[in-house]
């Protein structure tokens, strides 16, 4: 799951996969704006077959949070 998420974030934000880590967030990544946030959410929903609630959309603001919320939604343990 982590690799998938990092691959998606790399594609959405146009940054190397290796640079996506525990510090990656909308505050540290300049490319993380409203539009790319929407693209990220859409890509995650499509890849994992989930639909995020409004509150989850507003919380998906960092790589760790994405990982946490997706793990809970899919019942997949984080690796």
């Amino acid at each position, binding site marked *: 799951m982590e690799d998938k998420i990092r691959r998606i974030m790399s594609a959405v934000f146009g940054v190397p996969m290796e640079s996506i880590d525990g510090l990656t967030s*909308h505050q540290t990544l300049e490319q*993380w*704006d*409203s*539009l790319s*946030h*929407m*693209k990220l*959410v*859409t890509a995650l929903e499509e890849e994992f077959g989930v639909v995020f609630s*409004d509150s989850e*959309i*507003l919380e*998906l*603001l960092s790589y760790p949070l994405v990982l946490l919320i997706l793990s809970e939604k899919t019942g997949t343990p984080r690796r």
Partner: protein
Amino acid sequence: MERFISENYRPDHILCSRDYFQWLFRISSSADRAPVMCAWEGDELTAILGCLNLTMQWGSHHQDVPAVGLTHWMSSKRAPIGVGWILARKALSCCDLAITLNSSKLGSPFFRSLGWSFRESIPRYLCILDRQRCDILASSTEGRTLDRLVFSPPHSTQNPELIDFANYAPRWELYPQMLFSIKRSSEYLQWRYLEHPVFTYHLLVSGEGHRPAVCVYRIEQAYGIGEGSVGRIVEFFHPDDENGRIEGSMLLYFVLKRLRVVGCAFAEFYCTSEAFGQTILALGGGVEPPGHYVLPSRLTPIQSIRHDINLTFSLPKGLPMPTEAGLYVTRSDIDGDQPVRHMQV
């Protein structure tokens, strides 16, 4: 709401006018709700998205399609990331078909990313009524282009027989050029033009009640680097047959003559339908070439750069893609023809 718009945009933004707000969203003065999606953080309003309930024809004259017109998508600087899009998603949960005009540089990429259909610009038809007055307004070097757009009707053009709007009852199967459009019912025209709280629109109907030609226009006073008046034609349609085209041509000729008499420098008509635009061409006008600035479109004050009106719409499964020949969208759809500012500030 007024404070949110005033603080985040301008205090004289037209949506700060209570009369205009009530008219646009069709609510009474005593209403405590409006079809505007709002996002709150505590007791602070952070984003809004207006939703106009529309009745459309979409591929069929026999079945109306409910749609939502998205308007005034605004957010404060403090709005959390993602909130604007949440509002758009909620708006779409009400109706599958959504349409919007003039989406911003921020909004357009959103809609494109959602897979919506996008048109960069609606064609703008121009007809020069007073060449000298246009030179005052234009301050451009498009002299040759202006010469080619001068109102020059055929000698045989006659005046139309105008009829009362009360007799307006079109059989829409006679208007295939409007197969994909907001339904121009009498109720819609009444609200959109005759009840407008700011602009004075002139609504003319000619021919027969069940197959009329229609033209709606207003006169705008331009100021800034030059001064003058401009005729904004916001509706023009007629039945798609020989008699309908003749009726439409007579009506448009009548309107252009009237605009010239009252001193308008030029007339414009934004419309996706080439069928109706052709009538302007036959009377001497033309279409503004893509990417070129010929005459100002923003007049209060005059801005000497080109401003396109873009069109975006969602296309849910089960509904057909609109055909070029059947799509009818004009400047006045949704909020495309709105006052620039609230004059009572």
